[in-house]
């Protein structure tokens, strides 16, 4: 542009003064103002008091802001993870043809993105064992909410209660509550037994009013759930939906959802491709074929073009809000397509062995660190006598908040999950960082 910034206008509007004048002339008006049909009374003639900045100054401003985040070694998880994302993911997903494109309503010029989303769906079909995966929800929490509303639309089930585990991330529980606020569903917790489903409690609660049972694997406490098949049988017996929450890395190692009778799988898929992003995620949503026409969100399918060549297109759009309006399966429009692209690239770059290796690292790193933490005086870990994935809960003799605060002073962040409980997530930390945490814990605990 003609200068570092254009004090009188948008740096992204290409109009030269001459061009603007000529265009106004064509329109027969004196200025752009004349083109606005806004009643005087509601015209805004104030200022936002936002100063324009050059690109460099804007970057400095933003860099300065985020630099106010301390350098902290984060042993944090509980649904949001920072698995290392290969450079390939950025390089390819940031290609402007991908990132600046729109939803694929003109599939003839969007075959590339459609194919990538189709491949994403296919990988999720493989990982879940279910027939259908959509090409993204906002995050795990909203995907869970959508699963509950799907339950209300499925003819084979009835009732008004959604059972969820007592141990459930507050963001997921809260979002679910709001998603069912417009239905006649209510959300009820079932108790946990040492951070696994308390099967007896669920069994005794089950009746025809339970439309859906939700369980997670791994749980938010990092434990591997051992009762999935039994839970699948139980929901089957009571004609309620079995919705399983998980994440795309865990899927590579833990029991295949289809094999334990899951009807719907939701969870976090941005644990591949995104890393820590202050909670930004991408919801995976897969389900049995019988629910196909009740699926929320977008689906990419295969068809043919006029020459008979295989082609991809968004399909079954009559489920969606732009066609079905108030009878749509969801109000979702913009989703997380680009994150799905990133997750697909990341998954493909790991390949099956890399993905299983990563998932196994999630087990061994948590197990090893729990053992070392357990050896620290004043700490007991893991609290739960279960297998662990990525993270575990530790008991601290001192108040957990005080221990965490001491750790924070040394540059480490852990979750406080109870008066005497902290939670530690470790997969991607280096040996050095783990050593340092254990050392800091020795002083803090």
């Amino acid at each position, binding site marked *: 542009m003609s200068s570092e910034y254009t004090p009188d206008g*948008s740096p992204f509007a290409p109009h030269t003064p001459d061009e603007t004048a000529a265009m106004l002339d064509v329109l027969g008006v004196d200025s752009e103002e004349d083109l606005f049909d806004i009643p005087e009374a509601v015209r805004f003639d104030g200022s936002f008091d936002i100063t324009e900045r050059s690109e460099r100054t*804007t970057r400095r401003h933003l860099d300065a802001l985020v630099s106010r985040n301390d350098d902290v070694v984060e042993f944090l998880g509980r649904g949001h993870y920072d698995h290392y994302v290969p450079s390939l993911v950025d390089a390819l*997903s940031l290609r402007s043809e991908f990132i600046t494109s729109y939803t*694929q309503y003109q599939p003839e010029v*969007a075959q590339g993105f459609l194919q990538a989303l189709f491949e994403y769906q296919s990988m999720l079909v493989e990982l879940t064992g279910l027939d259908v995966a959509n090409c993204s929800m906002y995050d795990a929490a909203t995907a869970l909410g959508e699963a509950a509303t799907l339950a209300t639309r499925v003819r084979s089930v009835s009732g008004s209660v959604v059972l969820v585990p007592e141990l459930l991330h507050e963001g997921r529980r809260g979002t679910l*509550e709001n998603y069912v606020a417009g239905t006649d569903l209510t959300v009820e917790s079932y108790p946990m037994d040492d951070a696994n489903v308390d099967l007896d409690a669920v069994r005794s609660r089950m009746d025809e009013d339970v439309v859906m049972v939700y369980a997670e694997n791994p749980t938010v406490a990092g434990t591997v759930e051992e009762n999935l098949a039994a839970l699948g049988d139980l929901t089957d017996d009571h004609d309620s939906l079995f919705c399983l929450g998980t994440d795309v890395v865990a899927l590579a190692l833990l029991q295949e959802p289809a094999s334990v009778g899951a009807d719907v799988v939701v969870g976090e898929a941005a644990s591949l491709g995104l890393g820590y992003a202050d909670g930004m995620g991408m919801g995976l949503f897969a389900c049995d074929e019988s629910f196909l026409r009740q699926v929320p969100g977008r689906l*990419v399918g295969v068809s043919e073009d006029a020459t008979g*060549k295989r082609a991809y297109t968004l399909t079954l759009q009559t489920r969606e809000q732009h066609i079905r309006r108030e009878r749509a399966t969801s109000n979702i429009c*913009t989703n997380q397509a680009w994150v799905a692209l990133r997750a697909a690239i990341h998954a493909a770059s790991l390949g099956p062995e890399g993905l299983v290796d990563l998932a196994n690292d999630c087990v061994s790193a948590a197990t090893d660190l729990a053992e070392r933490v357990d050896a620290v005086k004043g700490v007991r870990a893991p609290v739960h006598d279960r297998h662990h994935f990525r993270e575990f809960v530790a008991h601290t003799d001192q108040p957990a908040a005080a221990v965490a605060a001491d750790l924070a002073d040394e540059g480490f962040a852990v979750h406080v999950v109870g008066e005497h409980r902290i939670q530690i997530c470790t997969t991607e930390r280096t040996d050095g960082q783990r050593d340092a945490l254990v050392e800091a814990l020795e002083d803090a605990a």
Partner: protein
Amino acid sequence: LYEPLLSEKHTREVEVESDLPDHLIRDSVDLPDLSEPELARHYTRLSQMNYGVETGPFPLGSCTMKYNPKFADDVAAHPKAATHPERPASTRQGTLELRYHLQDVLGRIGGMDAVTLQPPAGAAGEFTGILVAKAYHQSQGDDRSEVIVPDSAHGTNFATAAMAGYDVVTLPGADDGRVDMEALEAAVSEETAALMLTNPNTLGLFERDIEAIAELVHDAGGLLYYDGANLNALLGRARPGDMGFDIMHYNVHKTFATPHGGGGPGAGPVGVCERLAEFLPDPHVRKTNGGFEEYAPEQSVGKVHGYGGNWLVLVRAYAYIARLGDAGLSDASAKAVLNANYLASQIDYDIPFGPFHHEFVASADEDAADVAKRMLDYGVHPPTTKWPEAVPEALMTEPTEIENRRSLDQLATAFDAVANEDIDTIEQAPENTAARRIDQVTAARSPRLSWQALDEE
């Protein structure tokens, strides 16, 4: 242009082994197994079969396909922006301050008193806004059952109202394409929780009666909801808050130029007037003595996202706003409106309604979807088609401010060329694209949604 599926290149079934007991693990995983060079080529080729804003004009009405500045991508990639949301607040002051600033500038831009950043998309913003309305009415002991939505509104408005448990009252449009005041009077009642309005509406028309509309709805105890999809028409010239709107969402991927990403992620922050601020989602960011903190507003509707929404999108939006400032934002709208009007003046199509602002809806002589397909052959992206229904064979066209006169002329040429072509050519279009016309019926009739489904054939 054709690229085989990853699964057609090389897959491998790996037996899963683990320290975990066998009954807790799966048997095997069968996934693509390719080297980095192979993947680089795969996705590069796929990208080459995709049209983006940097490929050419992208005048999709209602979608506001602006240029997404590169520096915003770099800002979002700053390593220090990559933090876990559950860090102690004292160690993520940068993130909180940025969020606070964005809440603040969005409020100023919309004329709103408080803004939440949590909704991860426009539709999620609508849902949040309607939840806020509902919570407000309930707090008043007022259990209303209806949301009014103009017939010409975005599909999400209807779906949102239904999702939130409201009956949807559809409002027919007046002959001039705006709200029919008589119909509105008839529709408004003590059951009216809210009226959801897009302004300028989807025909690009400013709702001139907005003050009267607001009065009508407010008098009945209802709230006025502003759908931010068309905010790019008004920046610096009118603010929803000043027009009487109580709640609004911002589509930052439209107005504030964050990339659409092939369908997302976007972000749909929601602004509200003072008396609704206490109902906004948890957490909200506020200033403290010398810092920033998150807190739950007193009567918060709770959560609409697992955490705080689409952070990487919000960072870009803030970067865009900070770059443009008052003058840039206001100029963006001026040029968006100029471009729409100029383009409209250059095409030989009937445009039934006006004066329009940042977008117009032209009427095609042939099937609008066919016209759109044929436009692809001219190397441009076509407008949104067949909607709003008030215009027969609608071509809803929004060039945005980023096009120069030459590319508007190029667009006009494409419009007019198609208008003069015979019906066969149009119906058989496109012919210059990566794929020719795609059979939608078969896709929907026998859905094949994964490579596994293809293998079964």
